[in-house]
């Protein structure tokens, strides 16, 4: 298919929305191919397995899937150490399998976002093997080499638990190479035009195949300069703008999503003037949602959103509660981090780097009300929500597995053999299933929740349906109401003539709140889940009583 042409309807599925701003209305489901479903019984999830489960995702109501790296890799960093950008890891199937998955997803109206890593490769990548082979190799300059390990001292070490320097000694070429992440992940040299051209070719390869978007990992670190912290440099933005320009030229309607764990003000430049990334993760918001819930106080949430700068109209924040990484606490103050550790990771084994390696349900003590409230905020705050696989059924984690593998265990489809994930012997699974009495697959699985109208899964389907019933959540403005009761987080989302009032009770106890809705005098409130009417807004403060962790979405109707 020629780039630039929109992907059309296929099979008996839904046509894909041709709106170039489709990502603003999207609900994204994040999944690793390896974890979802194993079609060939080798214990590892694969493309065919994922394709078999597309009906489930369509039923859930999501509109895009984000696939974590599936390229050939020594898998020393769960695929983020890529050894070949133009192929797929054999464990997951073939390139043809991927093409088929892509087509099937599009047939169901589901877009496919793939993930790649621009900043570094695996040390097993042929480019690095060539580069280290001799000082004269044509690819020598594709990586950042040095005779000393003293350059770029201003750059922090990101993986504090495992790395002591951003330089690693290469015994073959007898020099140091630069790496911002693990030492087996050498950084590419973006000062080299050949590298930039090559990485565009990589993206083009997949875009031509039909992928809808890229989630680009670790983008702040592309370029290094002496005397700086080597993050968010103007030269890095130049590289990214060049990629975006080419994307728009050849593939309009495709999207770039930035992974840049930065403060909102530092993130803002990644949107440029609408000419860099379409979307970026709002990293600082996520821990503050958890903090606000534990503190029973809206302050952390409203404060960070007040500090969030305006972004170009074509751009969008990406919101999430949990993902494949630790719940990162890099973007909080020391005091907030200490509080988060005490509140959510009492055991040291739950902590990793500067974060907490736990899933949503265990973080929230498996409290259904809190899980719903957090998802309610995720779906109603400004941005595109991302649901991490398994969180829709309340899957648990296994903190006894190393690194972040405890939140990357197999999807739990039913209570049968291997939880329906694979027919392999359990010993052959890439990771053990969760088996504890509370979160284990016999108790928490898709099949059992499908059969119960009141399950978390069915509730997630409902909230996604309600969210998708209006464009206001994806594209609307936000106006915070500041009721005197600080346990209540309330805001009005507006788009054109449409307005939705969202009221969240962050408290574990029932609360009364008076809202100043005089601006909306005369409107009737219609609760969006049950579609029941609430009293008309008048001159007096609008009184609501709310149960513990309850939230309301009201459509404001002038009738």
């Amino acid at each position, binding site marked *: 298919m020629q780039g630039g042409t929109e992907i059309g309807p296929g099979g008996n599925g839904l046509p894909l929305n041709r709106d170039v701003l489709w990502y603003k209305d999207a609900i994204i489901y994040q999944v690793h191919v390896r974890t979802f479903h194993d079609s060939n019984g080798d214990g590892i999830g694969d493309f065919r397995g994922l394709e078999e489960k597309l009906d489930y995702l369509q039923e859930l109501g999501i509109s895009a899937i984000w696939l974590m790296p599936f390229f050939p890799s020594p898998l020393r960093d769960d695929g983020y150490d890529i050894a070949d950008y133009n192929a797929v890891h054999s464990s997951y199937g073939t390139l043809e399998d991927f093409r088929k998955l892509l087509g099937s997803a599009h047939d169901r109206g589901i877009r496919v976002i793939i993930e790649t890593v621009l900043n570094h490769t695996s040390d097993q990548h042929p480019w690095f093997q060539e580069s280290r082979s001799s000082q004269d190799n044509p690819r020598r300059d594709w990586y950042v080499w040095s005779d000393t390990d003293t350059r770029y001292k201003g750059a922090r070490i990101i993986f504090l638990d495992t790395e002591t320097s951003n330089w690693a000694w290469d015994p073959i070429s007898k020099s140091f190479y630069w790496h911002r992440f693990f030492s087996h992940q050498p950084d590419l040299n973006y000062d080299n035009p050949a590298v930039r051209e090559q990485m565009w070719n990589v993206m083009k390869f997949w875009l031509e195949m039909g992928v809808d978007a890229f989630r680009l990992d670790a983008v702040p670190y592309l370029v290094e300069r002496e005397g700086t912290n080597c993050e968010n440099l103007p030269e890095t933005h130049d590289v990214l703008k060049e990629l975006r320009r080419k994307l728009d030229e050849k593939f309009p309607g495709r999207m770039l999503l930035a992974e840049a764990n930065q403060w909102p003000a530092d993130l803002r430049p990644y949107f440029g003037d609408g000419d860099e990334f379409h979307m970026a993760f709002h990293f600082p918001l996520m821990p503050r949602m958890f*903090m606000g819930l534990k*503190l*029973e*106080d*809206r*302050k*952390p949430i409203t404060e960070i959103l007040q500090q969030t700068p305006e972004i170009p109209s074509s751009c969008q924040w990406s919101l999430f509660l949990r993902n494949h990484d630790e719940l990162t606490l890099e973007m909080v*103050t020391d*005091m*907030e981090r200490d*509080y988060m550790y005490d509140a959510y990771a009492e055991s040291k084994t739950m902590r990793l780097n500067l974060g907490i390696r736990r899933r949503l349900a265990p973080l929230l003590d498996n409290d259904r009300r809190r899980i719903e409230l957090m998802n309610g905020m995720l779906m109603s705050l400004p941005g595109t929500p991302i649901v991490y696989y398994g969180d829709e059924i309340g899957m648990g984690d296994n903190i006894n597995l190393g690194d972040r593998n405890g939140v990357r265990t197999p999807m739990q489809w039913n209570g049968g053999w291997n939880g329906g994930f694979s027919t392999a012997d359990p010993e052959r699974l890439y990771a053990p299933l969760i088996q504890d009495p509370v979160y284990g697959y016999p108790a928490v699985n898709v099949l059992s929740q499908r059969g119960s109208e009141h399950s978390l899964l069915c509730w997630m389907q409902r909230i996604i349906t309600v969210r998708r019933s209006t464009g206001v959540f994806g594209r609307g403005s936000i106006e915070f109401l500041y*009721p*005197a*009761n*600080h*346990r209540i987080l309330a805001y009005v989302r507006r788009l054109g003539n449409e307005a939705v009032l969202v009221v969240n009770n962050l*408290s574990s*106890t029932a*609360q*009364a*709140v*008076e809202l100043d809705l005089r601006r909306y005098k005369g409107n009737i409130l219609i609760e969006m889940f049950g579609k029941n009417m609430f009293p008309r807004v008048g001159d007096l403060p609008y009184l609501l009583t709310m149960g513990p962790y309850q939230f309301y979405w009201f459509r404001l109707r002038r009738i």
Partner: protein
Amino acid sequence: MKLAEESYLTDDFLRQLINVGEVDILVGLPTHNNAKTIGSIVHTIQSGILRGFPRERAVIINADGGSRDGTPELVTGVSIDDVRPASNLYALRTLHSISTKYANSPASGVAFRTILAAAELLRAKACVVMSPESANIEPEWLSQLLRPIYRDGFDLVTPTYRRHKFEGLLITNLLYPMTRALYGLRIREAYSLEFGFSGRLGSQFLGQNVWNDGTDGAGVELRFTLAAITGRYRICQSFLGEKEHIERRAADLVPALRQIVGALFSALEPDFPVWSAVAGSQPAPTTGADQEVLLAPVRVNRKRLREMFSTGVAELESVFQSILSPSTLAELQRIARLGEEEFHYPAELWVRTVYEFAASYQKSVISRDHIIQALAPLFRGRVFTFLMENRNASADDVENNIEGLCLEFERLKPYLLQLWKSRE
């Protein structure tokens, strides 16, 4: 019991309390026309909360007695953001400041009752009352008064201070020695404008019948301390630092006596079963340093004190005849005739005087207010002697003299019991 009673909390205040919700820490701030100092005091309180209790749910409750200088607006208008940049402090939570005006004229009892009611409604775990007059308040005072309650399970924390040896003479010459002798616990500042207390003690006291005696709760803070002792709550003292001198006029003495001595004497009747069974005294647990005495020279008009004593003894003879025993009155009349150099109001005579006043206070033959007023000239005479005895005394000497007076109060306690029984 009336089920429907007019509430002393306004609807607006209740609405504010609903919005605050449950708290861990409550700071009560009674005010009346304190606009000059209140801003910096609230800043200090906020700093104290952020430093000592950054994670806790906290509220500042201002109970105002009808200020006309904008004090309540200043309390609620102080922004936490003003504190943060200077002190590099950060608030995890919303820190509330709310204010209410009570209906009557300024009265510390009404303010305290309002604060106690708020503490109960908000289920506050640890509370502290701060004085708007303490110009030298430090952020650490919050922790020093609250931490023993919040972390160590105490129910009442009274302060100790670094004071000048001639500051707080009503405390050193009457309140401290008498409460210690009667209630058996050595609490240096049983009546204080700054103190911490637990929510459970606050709730228990709120339910006591001390609020409708027509005094607007004057001296109720002392009754609170005594209630904590008689209720066997856990009490400790905490050293706060220097207590800045507050300039007082001679005319301030009678209101102070009403507030402090009146409250103490009023408590003796209901507390009789407790204090009559107590012998000796025990030290109260203390955190931080012991109280300290400053020795810098100060000017005191001793001559006027003695004159007021002598005049009072002469003019109030008929009143004293109803209050004092003939021997005590005769002795007072004798020393009233002495010249300045010979004048001496000995400890034993002072203790007998006080005990006879206390017993007489219960008889109600003459107005209680007259009794309290009649004590004023005698107290001035005792102060004259204290000043003379200690004018060149070291800190240790002053403490020894106060200790001696305390022991005299303890030694003569049987005399008070005898008076009490003869009264019956």
